[in-house]
C-alpha cells in the first residue's frame, strides 16, 4: 500500500472505532460521567470536607486529577479490549485481516480509537469537576502529554487483552483483578506520604502511581515522584507495549491460529 492508501485505511479504522463508541454513548460516555460525579459528591464534598488538606490542597482539588486519570485509564482500556474482542467474537476481524493493511495500521487504528475515548471521557469528567472545585492547570504541556501517553498506554494494554481473550469473561478479569486494584492503590485518593515506608516502596512498582502523579503535577504542580522520570516511564511502557502488540499481530497470536 502506498502512503495515501495507508492514510485512508488508518483514517477508516479510527473513524469506525470512534463511531462505535459514539453510537453507544449511553454505555460508553455516560457511565464514567455518573460514576465520577458520585466520587466528586461523596469523596470530594461529603467525606473530603472532613479530611482537610492533602499535599497542600483541599481534598477535592487533590482528588480531581486522580479521578480524571482513572477515567482515562479505564475507558481507554475498556474501549480497545471490548472492541477488539467483539471483532473477534463476530468474526468481523476477518474484514481487517484479509485487507492489505499493515499490522501497525491495525494496531494504531484500534489504539487511537481507544485513546480518543479515554481523552474524551477525561475532558467530560474535567468539565463536570468544575461544578465542584476550581480546576487550574499549572503546566499545560505536562498535563496534555501525560493524558495522551496514558490513554495510548492503556489502549495498548486493552489491545493485548483483546488479542488473548477467548471469551467475554477474559476482558473483564484483567480490569477487575489487576487494573482496578492498581488504580485505587495508585495514589488516586491519597498521597504516598501517608503510607508507611514499606507500602510506599511497594507502591513505587505500581506504574499507575507515576501517571497519576505526573498528571497531578500538570494540574496542581505537586507530585509524590519525579515528574520527568514518570513521563519517561510512561513513554518507555508505551514503546514496550507497542513492540509487544506488533509482535503478537505479526505472529497472528489469538487471531490467525
Amino acid at each position: 500500500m502506498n502512503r495515501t492508501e495507508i492514510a485512508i485505511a488508518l483514517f477508516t479504522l479510527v473513524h469506525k472505532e470512534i463511531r462505535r463508541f459514539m453510537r453507544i454513548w449511553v454505555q460508553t460516555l455516560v457511565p464514567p460521567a455518573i460514576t465520577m460525579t458520585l466520587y466528586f459528591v461523596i469523596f470530594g464534598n461529603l467525606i473530603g470536607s472532613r479530611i482537610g488538606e492533602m499535599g497542600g490542597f483541599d481534598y477535592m482539588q487533590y482528588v480531581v486529577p486522580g479521578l480524571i486519570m482513572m477515567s482515562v485509564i479505564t475507558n481507554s482500556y475498556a474501549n480497545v479490549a471490548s472492541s477488539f474482542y467483539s471483532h473477534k467474537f463476530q468474526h468481523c476481524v476477518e474484514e481487517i485481516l484479509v485487507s492489505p493493511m499493515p499490522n501497525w495500521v491495525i494496531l494504531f487504528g484500534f489504539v487511537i480509537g481507544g485513546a480518543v475515548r479515554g481523552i474524551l471521557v477525561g475532558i467530560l469528567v474535567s468539565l463536570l469537576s468544575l461544578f465542584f472545585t476550581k480546576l487550574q492547570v499549572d503546566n499545560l504541556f505536562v498535563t496534555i502529554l501525560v493524558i495522551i501517553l496514558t490513554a495510548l498506554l492503556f489502549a495498548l494494554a486493552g489491545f493485548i487483552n483483546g488479542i488473548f481473550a477467548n471469551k467475554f469473561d477474559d476482558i473483564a478479569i484483567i480490569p477487575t483483578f489487576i487494573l482496578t486494584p492498581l488504580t485505587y492503590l495508585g495514589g488516586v485518593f491519597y498521597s504516598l506520604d501517608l503510607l508507611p515506608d514499606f507500602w510506599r516502596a511497594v507502591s513505587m512498582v505500581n506504574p499507575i502511581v507515576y501517571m497519576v502523579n505526573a498528571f497531578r503535577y500538570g494540574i496542581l504542580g505537586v507530585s509524590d515522584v519525579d515528574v520527568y522520570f514518570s513521563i519517561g516511564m510512561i513513554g518507555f511502557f508505551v514503546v514496550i507495549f507497542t513492540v509487544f502488540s506488533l509482535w503478537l499481530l505479526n505472529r497472528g497470536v489469538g487471531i490467525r491460529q
Partner: protein
Amino acid sequence: MALALSVKNLKKRYKGGVEALKGITFEVEQGDFFALLGPNGAGKSTAIGIISSLMNKSEGSVEIFGHDIDVSLSKAKKEIGLVPQEFNFNQFETVYSILITQAGYYGIPASRAKVNTEKYLRALGLWEKRDSPSRMLSGGMKRRLMIVRALIHEPKLLILDEPTAGVDIELRRTMWTFLEDLNKKGTTIILTTHYLEEAESLCRTIAIIDEGKIIRNGSMSSLLKQLNVETLVLDLKEPLSEAPKLDGYVCSRVNDYTLNVEVDIEEGVNKLFALLTERGIKVTSLRNKANRLEELFIRLVNKQDTFSP
C-alpha cells in the same frame, strides 16, 4: 497461461496436533472457474483460510498472481476477494457502512468506494437495502452482501466458500449467472460448495480434497470421463419382493416399486432393458440417481475403486 494461484506442499497443523492439511499442491490458471470440493472437515476452509491469510500455515508456499504471501503479502491480499462460509460482518452496521469501511481498509478513496458500492449493490439487488442494519437482512441477502464486500476493491481472484449454502433455488441461479458473468469479464473464481450440480455447471477445473490431501485434480471433463459407473433409478409398474440378479449389472431394491441399478459405461443400458423384459419387469420411468460429479465425488471419498486408471 499465467497463474492466479499456486499452492505448493501446503501443510497445517493445529495446536493439539490435528493435521488439517497434509501437503496439498494445486494451481489455478488466470481466468479459470475452479471448484475445490471435499466432504466436511476435509480441509477446504483451512486451505482457503491460509490462501486469504486468515490463518497461518505450518509449511509450504502460496503465490497469488506471482506474489508470495511470505514475501509480498500486501500485494497478494489486494488481488483477492473472499466470501467466507460464515457471516462475518458487524451485525450492528448498515449495509452501506460495511461496504464503505471495507473499501477504506483497502485504501480506496471515498469517491471510488461510493461508486463501487452502488455498482455492486445494484448488480446483486441490494441497493434498496443499503441503509438497513445488516442483521435485518435475510440469509440470502447476507450472502449477497458478502459477495459485494469481496468485490468492493475489484479483485482479480474471487474465492467463495460455500456461497449458496441456505440460499433458495431461484436466488442460487441468479448468483450463478452473476458469477459466470464476472468470470467472463476476467475474474478468476475459486468456489467450494456442497451442491455438486453447482460445481458441475459452473466450474471448468476441480480439485477434490479429502482428509487433508488432494485426491483428484484436473479439468472437469477429464475427471468426469474417469467415472465409468453410474447409478440409475428405475420406477417399476408392478411390485418386486427382491432385487433381480441381472448378468453384468448390480441391482438393489429400494422399495417395492423402485430399483437401483449400477451401470458400467462400457456395458450400456440396451442389454439391461433386454434382461428386464426377459424377466417380465416393466419399467415406467428412469433417471440418474445423482449427477455425474456427485457420483464421482461420492465414489472418491468413499474410496470405491470404480475408476479408470
